[in-house]
C-alpha cells in the first residue's frame, strides 16, 4: 500500500459510500423539493431528479416502495420524500433513494384521485356516450357490497319497500382494506357473467377517505367501465365522490338512493300504469269515436242516404228518351198524315167520280144551256118556219095548181125553162091530184120581150 499511494476509483467510491452508510443523518432523510425528469420505468422503478432553486439531487424509488404510492409522480410536483442518501457506485453519484413520497400541500390520496380522474377522463371512460340507460323495471338487481354492511341492509329495505317484485342478488365483496380492490373487481366480473341481472349496484356506506379508497382504484374503475350490465355506484355519503362514481352508468349519493334509482316505486308505477291505461283508453275511445263519425258520415252520404238517387238519373234519362221517342214518332206520324192528306187530296182531285160528277154538273149545265139554246132556236125556227109556212102557203104550187098550173120534172130536175128540153124527153107532169107521163114532141123557145 505504502509503496503504491494510488487508489482505484472503486476503492475511493467504496470509501465514500461507507461514509454515507455511516452517517445516520443520511439514513433517514426528510427532504422536500420539486420533481423533474420523472421516468416511470417499466420495471416499476421510478427515477427522477429532486430540485429546488439552488440544487438538484438524482433520485430513485424502487418498485417495492413505488407500488405503495397513492399517486403518480410527475415533473413539476412539489413533494415530501422520506428516504436515504447513498452513493451509486457505478456512476459515482450520490442518490436519494426515496422510500415514501407525499405530495406537498395536498394529500396524496386527493392527488392520486385527481390524477386517475384526469387520466381516465382523457381515455374517455367518463364519456356520456358509454353510459347505459338503467332498465325501467328490473327483475334482478345485483349488489356488490359487504354482506354484513349497512349499505346492503339499506338497499334491501329500500327495494323491498319500493319494488318487492325485484329479486336482489348479492355478490359479497370486501369494501375496504387490502382485499377490497381485487374483491370488488372479482365481484364485478362475476356479476358481469350473469345474463339475468338487469342492473348492478356497487358501493358501500360512509367512511374515511381511506375506507372508500378501493372505489378510487383504477382496476375497479376499469372493471366497472367494462361491465356489460348498467351500473350504479353508491359510495359513502352524498359528499363523497369516487372514481367509481364517474365511471358507473349512474351515480347515487348513497346506497339507499342507488336502490331508489335501480327500481321504480311500485305505487308510482301503478299510478303510471293507470295513467297510461287512461291515456290508451281515451285514445282508443276517441279513435273509435272518430272512426264511428267517419263511418256515419259515409253512411249518411248522399248515395247511401238516398239510394233512389242512384237510379233516378237513369229514370229521368229513360223518361226523356221515351218522351223524345214519342215526340219524334208523333212528329213522324203527323208528317206522314199530312203527306197522306196531301196525297189523298191529290187523289181526290183526280178521282174519276169527281170528274164524272163534275162532268155531270157540266153536262147538266150544258144540257140546260142546250135546252135553252134549242128551245130558243126552235122557237126562232118555229117562227121562221111559220113565216116560211105562211110564205109557202102563199107560194104553194098546189094553190097554183088548183088554178091549173102543173109541174114538170125531167127525171129529177124541175123543168123551169124550155132551154135544155129536147124532143123525146120523157117528163113527169105533176098535177094537183096526180101525175102523168108525157113525151116532149117539140120545143119552142119564146122570144123575150124587151
Amino acid at each position, binding site marked *: 500500500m505504502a509503496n503504491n499511494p494510488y487508489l482505484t476509483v472503486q476503492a475511493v467510491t467504496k470509501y465514500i459510500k461507507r461514509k454515507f452508510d455511516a452517517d445516520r443523518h443520511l439514513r433517514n432523510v426528510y427532504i422536500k423539493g420539486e420533481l423533474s425528469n420523472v421516468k416511470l420505468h417499466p420495471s416499476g422503478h421510478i427515477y427522477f431528479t429532486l430540485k429546488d432553486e439552488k440544487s438538484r439531487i438524482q433520485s430513485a424509488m424502487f418498485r417495492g416502495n413505488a407500488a405503495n404510492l397513492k399517486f403518480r409522480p410527475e415533473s413539476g410536483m412539489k413533494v415530501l420524500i422520506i428516504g436515504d442518501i447513498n452513493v451509486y457506485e457505478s456512476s459515482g453519484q450520490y442518490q436519494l433513494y426515496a422510500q415514501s413520497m407525499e405530495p406537498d400541500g395536498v394529500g396524496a390520496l386527493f392527488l392520486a384521485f385527481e390524477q386517475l380522474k384526469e387520466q381516465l377522463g382523457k381515455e374517455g371512460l367518463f364519456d356520456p356516450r358509454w353510459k347505459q340507460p338503467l332498465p325501467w323495471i328490473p327483475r334482478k338487481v345485483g349488489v356488490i357490497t359487504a354482506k354484513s354492511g349497512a349499505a346492503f341492509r339499506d338497499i334491501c329495505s329500500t327495494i323491498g319497500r319500493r319494488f318487492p317484485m325485484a329479486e336482489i342478488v348479492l355478490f359479497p365483496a370486501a369494501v375496504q382494506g387490502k382485499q377490497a380492490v381485487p374483491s370488488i373487481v372479482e365481484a364485478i366480473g362475476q356479476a358481469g357473467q350473469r345474463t339475468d341481472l338487469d342492473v348492478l349496484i356497487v358501493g358501500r356506506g360512509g367512511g374515511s377517505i381511506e375506507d372508500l379508497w378501493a372505489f378510487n382504484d383504477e382496476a375497479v374503475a376499469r372493471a366497472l367501465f367494462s361491465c356489460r350490465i348498467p351500473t350504479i355506484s353508491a359510495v359513502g355519503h352524498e359528499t363523497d365522490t369516487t372514481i367509481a362514481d364517474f365511471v358507473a352508468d349512474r351515480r347515487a349519493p348513497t346506497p339507499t338512493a342507488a336502490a331508489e334509482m335501480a327500481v321504480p316505486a311500485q305505487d308510482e308505477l301503478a299510478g303510471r300504469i293507470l295513467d297510461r291505461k287512461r291515456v290508451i283508453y281515451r285514445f282508443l275511445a276517441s279513435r273509435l269515436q272518430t272512426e264511428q263519425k267517419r263511418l256515419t258520415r259515409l*253512411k249518411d252520404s*248522399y248515395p247511401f242516404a238516398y239510394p233512389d238517387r242512384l237510379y233516378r238519373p237513369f229514370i229521368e234519362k229513360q223518361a226523356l228518351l221515351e218522351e223524345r221517342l214519342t215526340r219524334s214518332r208523333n212528329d213522324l206520324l203527323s208528317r206522314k198524315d199530312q203527306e197522306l192528306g196531301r196525297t189523298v187530296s191529290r187523289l181526290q182531285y183526280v178521282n174519276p167520280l169527281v170528274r164524272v160528277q163534275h162532268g155531270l154538273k157540266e153536262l147538266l149545265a150544258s144540257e140546260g144551256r142546250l135546252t135553252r139554246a134549242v128551245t130558243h132556236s126552235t122557237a126562232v125556227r118555229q117562227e121562221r118556219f111559220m113565216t116560211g109556212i105562211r110564205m109557202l102557203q102563199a107560194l104553194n104550187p098546189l094553190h097554183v095548181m088548183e088554178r091549173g098550173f102543173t109541174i114538170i120534172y125531167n127525171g129529177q130536175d124541175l123543168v123551169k125553162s124550155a132551154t135544155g128540153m129536147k124532143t123525146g124527153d120523157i117528163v113527169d107532169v105533176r098535177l094537183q091530184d096526180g101525175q102523168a107521163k108525157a113525151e116532149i114532141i117539140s120545143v119552142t123557145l119564146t122570144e123575150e120581150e124587151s
Partner: protein
Amino acid sequence: MENESMKFEDAMLQLEKIVQQLETGDVPLEDSITLYKKGMELSSFCQQKLQSAEKQLISIVDKDGTATPFDPSEGENASE
C-alpha cells in the same frame, strides 16, 4: 262479404272510394247498384268491427275489475 281478416281501415277506404264513385254519378246503373250493395256490406262490416272494438275496450277495462260504461270523455276510474 270479405273474410273477417279484412282490415277495418281497408274496408273504410273501399267504402270511401265507393261513396266517391257513386257521388260523381257517372257509373253505369248495374255497376252503381253493385257498388251500392258492396258499400252497404262494407258499411255494416265496419260497424261490426267498431262495435266489437268497443265491446273489447269495455271488457279490457272490466278485467281490471272496474266496470265502467263506455264513455270516451273519461278514462276508467282509478281503483287502487
